[in-house]
């Protein structure tokens, strides 16, 4: 027996299918670029380009849990991949920083530093309802009430928004994805090419199914959750796509000719965050040796594309006043890290071996919740953190750092990246600016 809300959703999808443009309709040409450039139909960010309809179902192996209550704002890479398939923002940014059309087909600069976005004509929710400017503001009101309040509805499909103080990418931030609540409180209703149809066989909680919308040339997604050390098992079990930084899995895939190893961008940077203005002196150490301390694919930390790492630009943001929580004297000689992050543990161990905090210092791994508490308190000697190297809105990303960060010292350690292990013939897969792969119809 199909639940009532699913019957309604299915009916809505049928109605939407009758009115949606066909799969062959090309995306509208991107508008004049307010940001770095205009996306072209090139293959610069394409990993694979198999025929989408060539396979009815593809298996995606995810090494982290996916929680529907987080949608559409991801909290880990697995959620970032899944939510990217389900939800859309007004625009997208590709791996080279070029802006692409999303829910908005065009945008232009208006008077008094405002921008006007025009929604795609065929933009519809999964239930078939057309996406209006009112829906966009309603979605934004849930997660960015300031932006929603400053925006205005010009017409049914046109809205006016204030120009952002930071680069234009914030409109591609998943926080601003357009959704509406679903009956029953399950997955929010989005506008992406897939919608979640339920768990796996026999209701297994470690598996999700996502079906493409009617007449969208995308395969069905079978999303399986694997243990962090089960990447090779996932390959043996026939995964079509696995994003991982496990060196053993990469080495194993290299011996499997049916898989292609596609390195993704250097999207993560490990930093040493220490309270106080006196840096632990990482730069004076043999910092180049840190790269060897990490088991995964790593390089010495480099500046971001804009010239500086975003976390060194926090002065532009309206953050809390700089304040040292307890003073340098009271800190303990511990380098603390999240014990679920192996690279952080490797780096902390190496820093201790190099004597960053002096003789007698130790590295201590904490469970995620105590680690968050310790990070907020700022009472430890230093913290090894993993930060996103590219963020859509670095002022908002800065809010994820502890309040005392602006009074402390952040020293980049290494950049790391993941690899996409893709079965040959996989449908078209591209990489966006945040390093997340995205399945696109041809």
């Amino acid at each position, binding site marked *: 027996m199909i639940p009532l809300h699913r019957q309604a959703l299915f009916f809505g999808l049928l109605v939407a299918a009758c009115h949606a443009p066909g799969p062959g309709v090309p995306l509208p040409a991107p508008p004049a670029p307010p940001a770095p450039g205009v996306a072209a139909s090139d293959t610069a960010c394409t990993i694979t380009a198999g025929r989408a309809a060539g396979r009815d179902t593809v298996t995606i192996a995810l090494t982290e849990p996916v929680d529907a209550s987080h949608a559409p704002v991801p909290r880990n890479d697995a959620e970032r991949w899944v939510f990217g398939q389900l939800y859309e923002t007004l625009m997208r940014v590709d791996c080279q920083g070029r802006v692409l059309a999303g829910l908005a087909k065009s945008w232009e600069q208006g008077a008094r530093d405002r921008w006007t976005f025009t929604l795609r004509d065929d933009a519809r929710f999964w239930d078939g309802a057309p996406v209006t400017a009112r829906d966009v503001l309603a979605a934004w009101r849930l997660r960015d009430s300031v932006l929603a309040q400053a925006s205005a509805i010009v017409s049914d499909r046109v809205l006016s928004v204030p120009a952002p103080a930071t680069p234009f990418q914030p409109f591609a931030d998943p926080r601003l994805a357009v959704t509406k609540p679903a009956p029953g409180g399950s997955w929010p209703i989005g506008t992406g090419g897939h919608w979640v149809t339920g768990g796996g066989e026999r209701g297994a909680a470690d598996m999700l199914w996502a079906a493409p919308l009617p007449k969208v040339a995308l395969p069905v997604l079978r999303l399986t959750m694997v243990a962090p050390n089960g990447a090779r098992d996932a390959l043996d079990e026939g995964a079509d796509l696995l994003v991982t930084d496990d*060196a053993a899995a990469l080495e194993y895939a290299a011996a499997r000719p049916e898989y292609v190893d596609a390195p993704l961008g250097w999207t993560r940077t490990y930093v040493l965050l220490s309270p106080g203005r006196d840096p632990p002196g990482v730069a004076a150490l*043999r910092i180049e*040796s840190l790269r*060897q*301390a990490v*088991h995964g694919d790593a390089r010495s930390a480099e500046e971001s594309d804009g010239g500086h790492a975003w976390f060194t630009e926090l002065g532009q943001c309206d953050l809390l006043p700089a304040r040292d929580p307890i003073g340098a004297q009271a800190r303990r000689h511990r380098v603390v890290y999240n014990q679920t992050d192996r690279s952080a*543990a*490797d780096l*902390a*161990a*190496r820093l*201790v*071996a190099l004597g960053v905090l002096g*003789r007698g210092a*130790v*590295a*201590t*791994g904490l469970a995620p919740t105590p680690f968050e508490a310790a990070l907020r308190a700022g009472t430890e000697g230093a913290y090894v953190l993993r930060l996103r190297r590219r963020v859509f809105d670095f002022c908002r990303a800065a809010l994820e750092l502890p309040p005392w960060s602006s009074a402390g010292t952040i020293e980049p350690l290494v950049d790391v990246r993941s690899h996409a292990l893709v079965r040959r013939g996989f449908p078209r897969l591209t990489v966006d600016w945040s390093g997340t792969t995205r399945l696109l119809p041809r």
Partner: protein
Amino acid sequence: MTLRARILLGFGVVVLVPLLVFGLRVRTEMASRLTAEYERRVAALVAVIRADLEQQSAGIASRLAALTGAMAADNRFRIAALQGGDRAYLLDYAGNAMHLAGLSMLQIQDDQGRVVSSGHFRNEYDRLEPAQPRLLAAAPGGMALVQARTPEAPFLALARLDSLRLGRRRFTLIGGVAVDSGFRARLTRDPELLVSLALPTDTLPAADSAGQVVSELTVPFVAEGESAELQPARIVVRHSLASLGALRRGVNLAFLAAVAVTVAIALVLGGAISVRISRPLAQLAQRTSEIDMDRLDVAFHSERRDEVGALTRLLGAMTDRLRTGAAKLREAERRIAMGDLARQVNHDIKNGLIPIRNVFRHLLEAARGEGPDPLAAALRDRQGTIESSISYLENLATNYARLYPPPARELCAVNEVVLETIRRVGEVAGRGELRIELADGLPAVRTDPLVLRRILENLIGNALDSLESRPGAVTILTARGADGGRPIVRITVADTGKGMTGEELNRAFDDFYTTKPGGTGLGLSIVRRLVLDANGALRVETAPGAGSRFIVELPGETA
């Protein structure tokens, strides 16, 4: 100190002293034997630990030898170590090898003392630590305790050294097993044996020789960092004497319990024996204290054949002699008193009668004259003398009456007085059977209990005397009666004696009338007077050969 206290003290000394000597001896012997046993166990454990360390060392040596063989055969390791390629393989090599070999510590150093690969601290590569292999090589037996560093905290390992040559370079392996709490726990399963490890930097608390048995062995120790020389670490084995203390406490408790039980039994036995001895003596003392010249009716009878019985009989004989002497003395006093009184009364009455007799003679002489006038004149003439003499006699009677003071009047329970009298009379009677039939709920009477007792003693004594050594019984009855609406108490003393004739009954209450040999003849006279003084009445029912019933009725008090 009383006799009873002395008996108890004697019991205590006799019982407790041997018990105390026995208990102290047991405690001392037990402590010395257990301590010797503990010392043997500690020494044995130290020997076992020494052998275990040597066994562990041999095991580590064989595993390191196997690892050096594997490293020599591993071309990938050779390339990484000598030519600098595949650094990740080199860095992870010691960790993988350490786990495969079952070691807790493995460090591979090059010939300069630089860490090439470390299993317990993967990311300490490139650190210079040449001191550790140098000191380990100098350790006796090639084994030492090493303080190994990890990112989280240093740990102790029992380590050995091995080496291999690859090309022109020599690599040193330092491998060992962790000496943690589990390692120490495996050294002994006995919870009473405590094995602790004292490093040179530790300050162990001073051994409590009174509370522990201690022994130790020394193991070379290599501290973390640039240590200049080997230092001794001590493995200390302690056997707590807590169990001995607990055993002592148990013995003490058992001993105290035994003492308490013994003391209790001694007290009970001593108390019983002392009571058995002292109670008859106390009773004798009590009875003896009751004896005085007015109270010689105390009885001393005993069937015992011991000293107490003999003493009782001696006191009884002495009391009998006293009683006889007192009776003779009272009789003599009575006779003297009666004689004095009779002479005084005789003198006083004569003093009153002489004028009257003289007047009477005068009147007779006047009457022998002629005509009535001389008699009348004489009578008028001597009227004052007669009246003066009569007044003198009346005063005399009043004065004699005052010699006997009025009895006290108080509420008195008749039955209690009857029983008390029976008890006193019965102890000395022995001449016939005494029966009592007492009514319940009698009202109290207002009289002197001593007076009532004297009434009863006289009546019961007379009744017993009337039996004249023949079988018979004297019955005392009490009953409630009424006299015109007022309650009365009726006391009947009945005997089965010879009874009285009518003539004897008429004279029974006269003073100095008696039918008994040696009697005073005052008994019933006194009884009647005492009954009348108590506002009561006395009746007699008697017949010759049918016994007598003396019935005393006293007014009762209304409730």
